[in-house]
């Protein structure tokens, strides 16, 4: 045992070493909070691998774009912004380690949020422990705000739940004779889609729209044929799908295969992706499908077109390929700028205090949050019309009026 003991002591050293390596290995975070001059260092963990990685990368782009722009303008309060990214491999254990490292090892000035509510919460709690503000652009699931964290601010116009309420607003704005009489709610069992669909269901039932089907299906479900068959057999006027991306496609495909064509088809997520959605369900099939979104490249929001141009200039590609997550993370940066402009200070206390009151214009619309950082606003309604994703509601920003009922599948 003794021999093992000695061997293990040498392993303890190994940990120290590994830590040392880590210290040299990461982009040197020079400044520390008590040296206000020098660059403004910001630590961000994003999922570059694992389940959330595709959107995680989009989140990173938004942050990077903002940083380059603000630095070009001479930084914040004269301090250049320096972003440090770490990968959390879509794992909560890793995300905790990362923010732990940012705050207590690299001593960054600020931290921004990761992608996905599931990781946001674990991370925000670490930040909260150290009194760091936690402004995040990609975690607006109900559980995030249910944790009642004082330091959390979601830089979006709406939470996942009330974001989808715009569909409710629209449907209930219709004259009674045009409203659907019956509705089905097939929904993915995840922290965003399901609550959103459930909230709509509650509202519609209150308004007298009969629920003929309401079920959740697990993320593993590869074939939604059975679900849609059941929905079709109830032949509802309206289908409200609490969908993410792939399962949303599967729902549409199954509807087409089973020649089931509801008068109204609203999906919480999936159709808002201008590239993947038509690619996976067929452009000709998109006509008349509704979804809600926080942002599109065409949205008439102050500063949006400038953002889109800058994005394309920096990363190339086509505006239609910009993921709304990029815009949301970009908005996080805008909020920080706003705080600096308003107060002339950029420490965490100020950020927390400032952002909890007032409302702030960002590329994703006006951000105004409650005491737990939940945005109060709503999203806007989009419909696929003539192969193009079009903003149709609320009228204030609508590009054109909604086209109903949904035409039959071609």
């Amino acid at each position: 045992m003794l021999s093992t003991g000695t061997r293990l002591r040498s392993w303890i050293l190994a940990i120290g070493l590994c830590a040392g390596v880590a210290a040299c290995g990461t982009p040197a975070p020079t400044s520390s909070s008590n040296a206000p001059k020098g660059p403004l260092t910001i630590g961000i963990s994003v999922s570059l691998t694992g389940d959330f990685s595709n959107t995680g990368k989009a989140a990173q782009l938004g942050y990077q774009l903002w940083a380059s722009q603000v630095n070009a303008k001479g930084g914040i309060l004269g301090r250049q912004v320096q972003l440090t990214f770490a990968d959390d491999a879509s794992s909560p254990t890793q995300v905790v380690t990362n923010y732990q490292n940012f705050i207590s090892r690299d001593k960054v000035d600020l931290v921004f949020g990761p992608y996905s509510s599931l990781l946001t919460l674990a991370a925000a709690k670490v930040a909260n422990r150290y009194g760091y503000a936690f402004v995040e652009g990609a975690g607006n699931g109900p559980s995030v705000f249910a944790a009642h964290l004082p330091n959390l601010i979601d830089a979006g116009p709406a939470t996942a739940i009330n974001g989808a309420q715009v569909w409710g607003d629209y449907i209930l704005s219709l004259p009674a004779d045009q409203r659907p009489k019956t509705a089905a709610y097939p929904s993915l069992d995840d922290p965003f889609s399901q609550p959103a669909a459930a909230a709509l269901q509650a509202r519609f039932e209150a308004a007298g729209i009969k629920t003929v089907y309401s079920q959740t299906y697990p993320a593993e479900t590869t074939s939604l044929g059975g679900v849609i068959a059941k929905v079709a057999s109830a032949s509802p006027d309206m289908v409200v799908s609490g969908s993410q991306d792939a399962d949303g496609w599967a729902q549409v495909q199954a509807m087409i295969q089973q020649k089931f064509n509801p008068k109204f088809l609203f999906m919480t997520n999936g159709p808002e992706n201008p590239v993947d959605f038509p690619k996976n369900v067929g452009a000709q099939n998109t006509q008349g499908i509704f979804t809600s979104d926080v942002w599109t490249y065409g949205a008439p929001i102050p500063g949006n077109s400038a953002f889109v141009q800058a994005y394309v200039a920096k990363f190339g590609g086509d505006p239609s390929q910009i993921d709304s997550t990029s815009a949301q993370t970009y908005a996080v940066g805008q909020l920080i700028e706003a705080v600096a402009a308003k107060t002339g200070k950029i420490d965490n206390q100020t950020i927390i205090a400032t952002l909890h009151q007032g409302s702030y214009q960002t590329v994703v619309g006006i951000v105004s949050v409650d005491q737990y950082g939940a945005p109060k606003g709503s999203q806007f309604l989009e419909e696929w019309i003539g192969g193009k994703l079009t903003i149709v509601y609320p009228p204030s920003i609508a590009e054109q009026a909604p086209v109903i009922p949904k035409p039959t599948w071609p």
Partner: protein
Amino acid sequence: MHLLIQAIILGILTGGLYALMTSGLTLTFGTMRIINMAQGVFVVCGAYIAFTLFNYLHIDPFLSILVSTPLLFAIGFTLQTFLLKPIRHDAHRLSLLMTWAMAIGLEGILSFIFGTDFRGILTSYQNSSWTIAGYEIPVVRALAFLLSVAILVGMFLLLTRTKFGRSVRAVSQRESAAKLLGVNTDRTAALAFGLGAATAGAAGAMFGLVSSFDPASHYDLIGRLLAICVIGGLGSNAGAIAGAVILALSESLVQAEFSPAWSSVPFYVLLIIVLIARPRGLFGVRTRGAI
């Protein structure tokens, strides 16, 4: 009632595809007595091959089987030679981790090449379906089913009619015996592993057609495939087919009749019942007590 039958049809169609995927597992288990945790990722590879060929060369996914199958065979053969052969001294313990490492490594490579977005293959006939006696039968699923059955039959013939098949069976009976019969067990093992991967390649192309996928899809797949193996009885082809159909049927039935949220649960419950009543699986042969 109509719904029930519709569900049964969908179930059986899906079952055929699962049966094909599982047959590969069964083969490698039969010959090498190892569980190939990489079978799922092999399937996903097949899907990505079909995806690539379709999007860039506009080759129909069903035709791309002709590419994915030999390609996966090569991959399987190579992996077996370089990673599994060296550990055969302790295969029954190490192979699990080794094949799992393969799975994760391949997932990494796939993510590296294709990114981690969900992909789907959208053919012209993707969403069309035949209406037979009032039941909607999706074309892709029907074709996938028929092709799977055809390949399974082909495999069966290969294993029963050819010299390779005989040596495979010899090895699976008893390695020492096979050695006496002058069967090159290493070679047979490599071929069998390659063949197992090849079936995944074929199944994968069709999997990509019937459902969307990303590099991480293999986790769900392997979970299902393993459960199918156990319920059917490890190493039994009949069992693999039965298990696959049971899985798909129970899923689509529960989905349609009860609640999709629980769709997979009855299968696992059934799995447990089978294990209590008949630990060796439905079609499994009792592994002779080590006497």
